């Protein structure tokens, strides 16, 4: 029986919380009364059985608890506003539970979770706060877990969350999906936050591995939700594809000692074929959107890697073309760097080096260790050992990521042995 409450918590808590935030207008009260409602469920359901509509039961129980709480508080301090608020909440309760669950249709998209995503990812909040709030309210991570994932002290993270919730309340950030005209621009921010959540889990191999892999799964879950709720947006499907294709490699990305294994050296039998299949299907339909957006192009690149049974079979010419398309829709020095690396694979390391020369001195890449690391790799392929060693040394000086340092040190030692 306990396991049923647990299962319902897993499946329904996100939806219940989102609805409570809409009804109560407060993130904190909604979180507290939802916990209270689940505690009551844990007590009552084993004796009385699970209600027919557990979600409606939870929303209504939590709602009752919120009214009780407001009433208790207003005994001490009976402001007009608070009394009005209680009246509204009681009115809601007087209507049926079904009415509470029914979503207001003014924004045309009836899902409280989607409204909540757009509220958490409002551009009037700091990007860090957007990510943290999304993890807290939509993914249900604890403040401790989020602080650990972002390597900041717990107090800093709680402050950040408190400030964000206050701003939503005091500046009145609306709880709704933006209207058609603003949707595209706002969806971009939402997708960026979801992708940042994913990357936080994906790129940092060191640290608390358990929390970080969990972040990838949560981002994928959010990606699925957005795609389900906005099926007309091809980039939403593309983002999900991109995350699935990266995530499919998780078991092959580190070795037994926890060190990074490069894509070309990974044991491809460890890749999750199920996720690759799903990702490939999504990429195909995303590419039908024209012109293909940045997530669709990145997902297409990941798809080509995923389709090669062995590293040598990778279709680098196709990847070069995709990077060129990506440079047109989303030019950036990092994309240029990746393009150069793909050219080196498709044509040859010398051609790649020529492109890297053009990137030297770019402000954005000055501190970016992957630029000298890429140079080192191409020089290594050209058997120019001392020059390669020099590049690896420069890369080492620019990164403090332990996994990256271990890899670069190993390459540097190889170069020094040959020089």
């Amino acid at each position, binding site marked *: 029986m306990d396991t049923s409450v647990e299962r319902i918590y897993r499946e329904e808590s996100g939806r219940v919380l989102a609805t409570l935030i809409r009804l109560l207008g407060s993130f904190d009260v909604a979180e507290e009364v939802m916990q209270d409602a689940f505690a009551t469920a844990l007590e009552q359901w084993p004796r009385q059985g699970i209600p027919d509509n557990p979600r409606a039961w939870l929303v209504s129980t939590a709602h009752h608890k919120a009214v009780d709480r407001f009433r208790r508080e207003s005994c001490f301090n009976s402001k007009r506003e608070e009394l009005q608020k209680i009246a509204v909440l009681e009115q809601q309760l007087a209507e049926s539970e079904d009415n509470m669950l029914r979503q207001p249709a003014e924004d045309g998209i009836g899902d409280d979770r989607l409204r909540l995503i757009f509220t958490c990812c*409002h551009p*009037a909040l700091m990007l860090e706060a957007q990510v943290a709030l999304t993890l807290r309210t939509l993914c249900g991570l604890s403040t401790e877990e989020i602080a650990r994932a972002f390597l900041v002290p717990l107090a800093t993270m709680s402050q950040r969350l408190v400030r964000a919730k206050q701003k939503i309340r*005091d*500046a*009145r*950030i*609306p709880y709704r999906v*933006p209207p058609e005209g603003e949707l595209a621009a706002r969806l971009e921010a939402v997708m960026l936050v979801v992708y940042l959540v994913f990357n936080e889990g994906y790129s940092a191999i060191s640290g608390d591995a358990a929390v970080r892999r969990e972040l990838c799964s949560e981002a994928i879950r959010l990606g699925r939700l957005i795609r389900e709720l906005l099926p007309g947006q091809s980039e939403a499907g593309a983002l999900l594809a991109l995350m699935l294709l990266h995530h499919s490699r998780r078991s092959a990305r580190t070795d037994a000692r926890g060190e990074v294994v490069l894509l070309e050296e990974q044991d491809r039998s460890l890749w999750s074929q199920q996720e690759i299949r799903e990702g490939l299907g999504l990429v195909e339909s995303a590419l039908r959107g024209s012109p293909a957006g940045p997530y669709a192009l990145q997902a297409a690149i990941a798809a080509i890697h995923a389709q090669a049974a062995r590293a040598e079979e990778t279709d680098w010419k196709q990847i070069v073309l995709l990077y060129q398309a990506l440079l047109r829709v989303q030019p950036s020095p990092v994309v240029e760097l990746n393009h150069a690396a793909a050219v080196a694979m498709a044509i040859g390391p010398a051609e790649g080096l020529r492109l890297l020369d053009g990137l030297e001195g770019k402000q954005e890449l000055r501190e970016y260790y992957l630029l000298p690391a890429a140079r080192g790799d191409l020089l290594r392929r050209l058997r120019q050992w001392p020059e390669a060693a020099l590049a690896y040394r420069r890369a080492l000086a620019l990164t403090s990521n332990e996994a990256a340092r271990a890899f670069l040190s190993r390459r540097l030692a190889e170069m020094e042995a040959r020089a």
Partner: protein
Amino acid sequence: MQYLLLIYGNEQSFGKMANPERDAILQEYGDFTKSIAQSGHYRGGNELAETSTATTVRVRDKKRLVTDGPFAETKEQLGGYYLVEAKDLDEAIALAARIPSARWGSIEVRPIIPHDMP
């Protein structure tokens, strides 16, 4: 709910502007004010005289200290404001984006906390 839209810009470059250009901007401001008055958002607003005319007052240990200007060496100065009624931050942001100076300066959007008169 009310919001104060604070208009920041570089007053020096505005001062150096040629007359026809300034007139065009003032005309645009007039049109904007009229349109938000008609739509029922307008609650008040004014242009401020240059910061060189500003005086700062402090009281420390019951003594009054009066000094010249705000001293912050910022590139943009507060040059005016609108007080508007909007249903939420998105509506306030939409109004702020229509203020002519938003295209070269910046607009700070601040919610007003209502206080009852004693």
